[in-house]
């Protein structure tokens, strides 16, 4: 069994999603190769080489791969595919973008959002917004898989040594797409999908200013990432990359604090695997309380500053 994992990185550093998808890969088979495709991305390759379970790192360094555009990246993966039985990537926005493209070129039906390995050809995945888990057996000779990263813990670093890094040449870019620009949210807070604590706000916050005034100080006190319900994002209170839910980000932190969030099915689908859920809402009948470990029926405009102050006092 030969396995290739497409790494998620920003050219400089390796994303935590890679180490989580690596854990999934090692459950399928041993000796995983990790592909770092990017531009000026050697440091990311060096980080990957230090992960436990990596047998070899393939480094392809070329401008065409700088922004993970699926057309050149798909062509590269296709050129590497003949020697691998399993090709996988974390279910990040770039993994979800390129892997189905590769799968179709290989005439393989992809297993999306894989959350458990039952056997090397049999997997569990969520459907209907996480309301149903299906177990599927892939009949394709090759497997193409995207991994739900919240379902797997991150692979650890090796205690000593590193896997070899092999540099490979780029393949021809189909030259049908180009990168124009990006607007990435800058934040000193932890990344939403990997944070240990997440503080999320809903429509009840009523404005962007209230997110700044109520949600952010609590998040900063807890060292937490900030999130939001779809309703709050659609209302324009916060940017789209804050959205937690089936169509936004799937999170599973140790502690999830839902503030002024009623708990629509699609929001629950994105956070119900959190270890501990706290809900603060003035509506005692809000569905969020059906999944919360600790519910506080209260006016958030009083309770949240009080909570932030209590945590500050407690140190």
């Amino acid at each position, binding site marked *: 069994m030969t396995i290739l994992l497409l790494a998620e990185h920003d050219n400089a550093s390796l994303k935590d999603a890679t180490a989580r998808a690596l854990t999934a890969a090692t459950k399928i088979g041993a000796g995983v190769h990790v592909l770092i495709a990017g531009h000026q991305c050697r440091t990311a390759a060096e980080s990957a080489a230090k992960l436990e379970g990596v047998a070899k790192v393939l480094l392809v360094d070329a401008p065409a791969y700088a922004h993970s555009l699926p057309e050149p990246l798909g062509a590269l993966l296709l050129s590497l595919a003949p020697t691998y039985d399993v090709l996988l990537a974390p279910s990040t926005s770039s993994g979800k973008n390129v892997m*189905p493209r590769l799968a179709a070129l290989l005439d393989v039906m992809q297993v999306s959002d894989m959350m458990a390995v039952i056997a090397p050809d049999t997997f569990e995945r969520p459907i209907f917004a996480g309301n*149903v888990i299906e177990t599927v057996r892939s009949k394709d000779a090759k497997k193409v898989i995207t991994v739900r990263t919240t379902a797997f813990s991150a692979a650890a670093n090796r205690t000593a040594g590193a896997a070899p890094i092999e540099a490979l040449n780029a393949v021809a870019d189909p030259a049908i797409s180009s990168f124009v*620009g990006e607007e990435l949210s800058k934040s000193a807070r932890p990344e939403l999908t990997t944070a240990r604590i997440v503080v999320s706000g809903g429509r009840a916050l009523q404005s962007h200013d209230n997110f700044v005034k109520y949600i952010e100080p609590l998040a900063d006190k807890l060292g937490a990432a900030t999130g939001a319900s779809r309703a709050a*994002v659609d209302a324009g209170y916060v940017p789209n*990359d804050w959205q937690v839910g089936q169509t936004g980000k799937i999170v599973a932190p140790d502690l999830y604090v839902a503030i002024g969030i009623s708990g629509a099915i699609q929001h629950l689908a994105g956070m119900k695997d959190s270890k*501990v859920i706290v809900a603060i809402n003035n509506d005692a009948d809000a569905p969020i309380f059906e999944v919360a470990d600790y519910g506080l029926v209260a006016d958030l405009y009083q309770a949240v500053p009080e909570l932030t102050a209590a*945590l500050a006092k407690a140190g």
Partner: protein
Amino acid sequence: MKILVPVKRVVDFNVKIRVKPDGSGVDVANVKMSINPFDEIAVEEAIRLKEKGSATEVVCVSIGPPQAEETLRTALAMGADRGILVGFDGEMEPLAVAKILKAVATEEKSDLIILGKQAIDYDCDQTGQMLAALLGWPQGTFASKVLIEADGLTVTREVDGGHQIVKLKLPAIVTADLRLNQPRYVSLPNIMKAKKKPVAKKALEAFGIDVRPRLEILKMAEPPHRKAGVKVASVAELVKKLKTEAGVLQ
């Protein structure tokens, strides 16, 4: 420019999903079915491009049972020009769907294909990307903004850290994310008008494509239910419980 919009008939997003007692599938008997919400956004975007004068015709295609004609009629009532229904009963995998759509797009000489980023039933998020691969076209997935220009298409994409803007050569594929637009409400006169718009029916066999599933579904089950916890009376009690009982605060 001719735009093709594939649409899928799915269980309505408000329906509580139940797994059949024997775990063989999801019970869809007598439940409300609707157009996949992401596909509805795709239809809206195509119609807006036509209204702006960027497109000449919007054709919608669905693969499904006879009732999928209702899904097409919804799209026609929104403003699409005509529909194509490929008859199929059951659940077809994205790879097979993409192969059929490729044949339809080739026959229709489509310049742009807009579809939902995923269907809310099987949540695969594959069809658009696969179709792009099979056609050899570029893809602008998870789109929140689409601009047609003289030399191609500029697509703003929702990505993990924010937005990414890409330029694509035409013909191209766009998959619609939530914030691409707000689909219009369909008026009664337009529903009546849509009844007269043409829907061509095609037999699956005519495509000569093997649509047998590659993934064998062994089991379906509901995930373990999370039990509701306790209500606390005050912030002080909450902080105390988080520290002592839950152990999530240092």
